[in-house]
């Protein structure tokens, strides 16, 4: 059996050349090989969304995705979202300011899922937001603050977009 395969990943814009066994999930490789522990491990069954990362701008459960299959794809984790430590992404700011974070375990997955969703639907209704984050469990906040934070960020981002457009 060939145990190690060469894999080139692009994570948060950085190239990584790795030798990894094919049975390693993208979640394991991000956390254990690259020390990017923002994506969390929980159910490992696609149920909770704590492991969500973006591949080519779309959300996937990295617990169900083989790292070798992410070859040459553009991966975004929560570590790559903010432009700098000082300038948070509007979603990050809205989550922090509106009480959408308590323990924070669900937050990276939720924010990335919300980011991908708002790219497709910059003006969502509350109901559309609920459907967009249906794959995420939060044991702390009770969800209301999360929906509000995404709505607030959507408004802010749409406002900015309009200004830039002018």
């Amino acid at each position, binding site marked *: *059996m*060939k*145990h190690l*395969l060469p894999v080139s990943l692009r994570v948060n814009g950085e190239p990584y050349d790795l030798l990894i*066994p*094919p*049975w*390693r*999930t993208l979640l*394991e490789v991000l956390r254990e090989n690259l020390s990017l522990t923002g994506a969390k*491990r*929980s*159910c*490992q*069954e*696609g*149920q909770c*969304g704590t492991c*969500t990362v973006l591949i080519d701008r*779309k*959300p*996937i*459960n990295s*617990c*169900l*995705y*083989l790292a*070798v*299959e992410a070859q040459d794809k553009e991966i975004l984790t929560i570590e790559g979202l903010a432009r700098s430590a000082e300038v948070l992404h509007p979603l990050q700011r809205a989550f922090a300011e509106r009480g959408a974070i308590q323990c924070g375990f669900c937050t990276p997955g939720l924010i990335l*899922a919300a980011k*991908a*969703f708002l790219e497709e639907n910059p003006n969502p209704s509350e109901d559309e937001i609920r*459907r*967009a984050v*249906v*794959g*995420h469990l939060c044991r702390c906040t009770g969800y209301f603050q999360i929906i509000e934070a995404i709505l607030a960020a959507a408004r802010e981002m749409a406002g900015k977009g309009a200004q830039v457009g002018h």
Partner: protein
Amino acid sequence: MGYLRRLPRFEYLAPRSVVAVCDALAEYPGEARLLAGGTDLILQMRRREVAPRYIIGLKGLSELAFIRPQENGGVTIGAMTTVRTIESSPLIRERYGLLCRTAAEMGSPEIRQSATIGGNLAGALPCADFPPALITLGAQVKLKSQQGERLLPLEEFFLGPEQTVVGPSDLVTEIQLPAPSPLSDGAYVKFHDRHAMDMTTTGVSAFVTLDQERRRFCDVKIALASSAPTPLRAKNAEAALRGQAFTEKAVEKAAALACQEAQPRSSWRASRDLRLELIKSLTKRAIRQAWEKAKAPPDGGRP
């Protein structure tokens, strides 16, 4: 199940073409497993329900990721087309609203991004949502191996829970849908615990074609999920409606017949009795919704 469990070891192959996949399957008979979106198979491997020696990864097979209109007015969907792609395809929305709506109600956006139509059929879980919808649409499936190709009605594809006619050296390549007839539409109605994220406890798909006057059922197809070892056509229920006017009595009768045809089992998810109740009410709902959709003008009556 230990929650830190890693996947069992395997050797990974990523053939670049359908022909190369068939060659790989033929080379390792019974030892290789196809990996599409992995939203079923990765779970099964983690639970050690399967531990294949070889995994043949299909994600790179763009050859099988397509939605193609056919000259006869039908549409062919490649096996590696994701649920997300089906949900957002204008062609599918226009010709097969039933399939589009069924896709939109499956799992989460994350699951739909990875899950494929081929995996949903080939996995043959009794709770899968595409089989009943596709059966009522009259879908056919194409299989390919080194020996050649076969095309068969989806109804004949399922043999039992997680069992299909797909042999160890077969690959599902595409799903073919016939041209939709005018004055027809359908509805898939399902019951599950947590919105969209839980396996379907019971699901019913109804697809109806109306007569010219929009008063009677000209043709009816009804198929059930999680109601028998395989997706099940409720043929007696269909026959009871054919040629009938739309009345509550006719719908009630069809639902009662569907219950008689179903053979649901008790599981931790639901008892047999609960499932029978569900089949009755979901069948009624599916027929009513299908009727309303088929009757409405295709543009939804908007100016």
